[in-house]
């Protein structure tokens, strides 16, 4: 019986070399491992043997069976496994269809972060404000030519002094926020503002402004200089010279305009700065006593500064964008670049 088993194993080993396809494989299985196969036949005979022989042969039988099974499994893997396709590692990857955060949000967040580091709280404010907030509280009285500096979209015209309008500047929140914060304080208002004007590459009916206010014993022009210089350096990732020029705003006194060194030509003169080497980016000044008084602040003892930056102007400079109208166009050719 043992001999028989040895022969079966030998035969199986020899035959294994001739298994070329799944048909051969199946024949092999039927012949050796099948229900009526050679091994099944043997097991039937083993059952009838005395106990001692049965134990001895049994373990040998298991050995043979597992060897044949092994052969079968190996061959099966080779034959039945599908042929590996050619894999091209240079095939382009899957296209990821993720959305995108708009450039306006991205740059806003950068600016928010810089001003947070400079100890400014961040505010948003309403877009619909009244005449007092946008004008009167800022020392821009009715029927005064200084109102002409802001072309306004009006919502109501018949409520005395409380007429509603779309804010023309984020300064509209100065008095309200000074009241809310108490002094000393620093805050920045970031938001959309509206101007009734004809649009072109540099003018839009809506754009964004960054209004900064600091009131307290150190809030003077020296601090303003260092705050803005830190801001520009961090926003443009470049140390930039800044230039203060005398100007006029009804709500600041002294008032000045702030230029930064042209980021395109390093003060050599180019088309962007119109060969002036500097580019105007902000208006600023020491808050007018009239405004402090509106906020209930003792203007004899306290002072502070305010500045306003044109958001799109900064972003356009940073990325060399030539038309302000892209920002609200919804044009993916623009949006997807950032």
């Amino acid at each position: 019986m043992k001999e028989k088993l040895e022969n079966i194993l030998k035969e199986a080993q020899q035959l294994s070399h001739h298994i070329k396809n799944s048909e051969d494989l199946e024949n092999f299985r039927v012949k050796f491992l099948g229900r009526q196969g050679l091994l099944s036949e043997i097991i039937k005979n083993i059952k009838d043997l005395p106990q001692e022989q049965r134990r001895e042969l049994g373990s040998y039988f298991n050995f043979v069976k597992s060897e044949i099974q092994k052969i079968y499994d190996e061959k099966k893997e080779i034959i039945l496994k599908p042929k590996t396709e050619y894999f091209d590692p240079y095939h382009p990857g899957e296209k990821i269809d993720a959305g995108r955060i708009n450039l306006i949000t991205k740059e806003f967040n950068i600016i928010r972060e810089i001003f947070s580091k400079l100890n400014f709280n961040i505010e948003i404010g309403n877009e619909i404000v009244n005449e007092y907030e946008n004008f009167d509280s800022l020392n821009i009285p009715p029927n005064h030519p200084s109102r002409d500096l802001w072309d306004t979209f009006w919502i109501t015209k018949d409520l005395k002094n409380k007429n509603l309008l779309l804010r023309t500047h984020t300064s509209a929140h100065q008095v309200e926020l000074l009241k809310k914060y108490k002094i000393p304080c620093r805050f920045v208002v970031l938001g959309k503002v509206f101007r009734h004007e004809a649009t072109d590459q540099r003018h839009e009916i809506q754009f964004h402004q960054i209004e900064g206010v600091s009131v307290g014993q150190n809030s003077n022009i020296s601090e303003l200089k260092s705050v803005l210089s830190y801001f520009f350096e961090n926003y443009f990732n470049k140390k930039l010279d800044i230039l203060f020029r005398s100007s006029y705003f009804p709500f600041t006194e002294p008032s000045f305009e702030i230029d930064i060194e042209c980021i395109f030509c390093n003060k050599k003169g180019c088309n962007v700065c119109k060969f002036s080497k500097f580019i105007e980016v902000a208006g600023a000044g020491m808050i007018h006593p009239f405004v402090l008084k509106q906020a209930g602040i003792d203007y004899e003892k306290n002072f502070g500064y305010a500045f306003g930056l044109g958001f799109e102007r900064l972003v356009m400079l940073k990325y060399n964008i030539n038309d302000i109208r892209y920002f609200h166009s919804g044009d993916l050719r623009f949006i997807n670049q950032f």
Partner: protein
Amino acid sequence: MKFRLIDLETFLAKKPNWTKIVDLLNKKSFESNLYKDYLEVDILPNRFSDSGNIFGLAREISIISNIPLKTEKFNYKTFSLDKNKKYPNIYIKTKNCLSYDGILITEIKIKSSPKWLKEFLEFYEFNSVNFLVDLANYSMIKYGAPLHLFDLEKINKNIYIRQAKENEKFLSLKNTEYILNFDDIVIADESKILALAGIQGSKLSEVDLNTKNILLESAIFNPVNIYKTSRRLNLQTQASYRFERNISLSSKNFTLKCFLNLVEKNDLGKISKNIISYSQIKESKKIVKLNLDKLFNYFGKEIPKNLLLKTIKSINCKLVKYQKNYIELIPPSYRIDLNLDVDIIEEIIRLIGYDSIEYKNPTFYHFPQENHKLKYSDEIKNILTKAGFTEIYTYSFISDKDYEIFNDFIKNNKIEPIKIINPVSNLFNFYRPFIFINLIKVIATNLNLFNWLRKKDFNFFEIGKIGYKKNNNFIEEENLSFITTDTELKKSYFKLKGALNYLFENLKLEKIKYQPFSEKIKYFDNLNMIEYKNETIGILFILSRDLTNKYDIKQPITGSEIFLYKIYKFIKKEETFKPPISHPAIFRDISMIVPIYTNIFEIENEIYKLGGSILEKIELFDVYSEDNLLKDEKSLSFHLIFRDKKRTLNDEEVNTLLEKIIENLKIKYKAKIR
């Protein structure tokens, strides 16, 4: 304003280096540009009264450059009026006439102007009329104050300077009739209006070729009245521009003297003594007290005494007192903008130069506080971009056409859009009451732009302010809108709903419900309210084909608008860890056939309601409506997950509950269970 260099040079003792001057002007005074033979200067509105004329700008240049100022000397003879002749009496009947000088010039000769004057006026953009009128303009350009000439013969007896009466009529130089009201100041005689004060004279009193005698007016009017009148009538003139920005007595007197001097020199007529000289304003200004600590605080450091004194002197301020802590000074009369201590501070700092101010780092005032709204909106933006949506910023306005299309929808929301009184065009007539309306246009734009790529699927969102009128209150809120489009409705809608679910899941807003609008809204194929804790937090919709056609879009659009202020309060500030429930869940599947129009949300809601606290979750895993089903049926299959937090459920109770759910669905939705 443009200034010829030769005109400025007449007032400067030395020929300046103009390139340097422009540099100084830019830093210390006004934005300026130098051209070949002229300067273009953007004179600040508060400085126009002193620097908006040749003499004034030369004075400013002299101050910043230290080139001495050269002044003109005037002298002319005046004759006393013939007491036998009758001349008009001038009565000031309004407090808004601040100063008024009337002088007669008799036996005048009307000539045309010499070449130099014509050239001068041409450069400053004035038409030449005749020598006399031209000299009045010349004097104004040189010294800043408007003058006015009346033909004496055309005046009927006396003159009254008064407020206009309601509906009084004024005939302008160009023969246009204007209707006046009480805000307007007029110069009138017994029977007619001779001039709209500070703006324009009337045709009825105009100097012409036959004029023999004239009344010369040199006046100052209340700028507020001039501003109001010229804006209301839309009648802006050189004179009104100057009067609005106020005129100083000094400028008025210089202009008048300059003019009279030239009248005599050129033998154009005989100058009378004043027939009226009225003024309620004084030339001398009030003392300004300036606290030196305040000045040094602004400047950031102390300013040496000699520099301070030199600077004060250079702007012609008269020093009254110099104490340890403060100074008192009187600003020059021509600087009507200098009244407060801070005005003087500005003068001192700008003249010393902003460049000399040092940089000082800010010190800590308070701990920075986070803006929660911004934090949440950032979070939402991140969630939606992960879901494949791109952030857009659109205009905050909608058009007449938009309003018309969405009229039914807006009315059904019981709101009114906010109308802009003075829109730039009818594309921007209303402040947007919803954001999605403009996102539809963004879809149209990009379908066109990417047509060549055959790209047809777009997913956009925007977070921004919206506003509307409700019960006559103006309300401003923040919304989130998102919108999807694709060639197939199914794809578009499921993308949208997937994103909505993803958003709510991330914001931990559970058990959101969709409630169909009770009424059919024009242009909406489907419109649902999104509800959370019994509050409507937004809407979800499918736009009709008629609507997309109106925006030239030939494929389905689905969208949603979320009222952010309603969900901000629900967003949990802190997340807490919940240990996984150790009690095992029991899973059951239900498959049913229901009529094709059955609302899946409703079925889900019904199952949730019946399932009670032990029904943890339902998941729809299969929907189909073809094959062996009838045409008006569909098959729905749900996974139901039952679990109790506190104990292990047994099969029997779940089976009983499931039976109950199935019975209910059979009755309520005619469901056939498979």
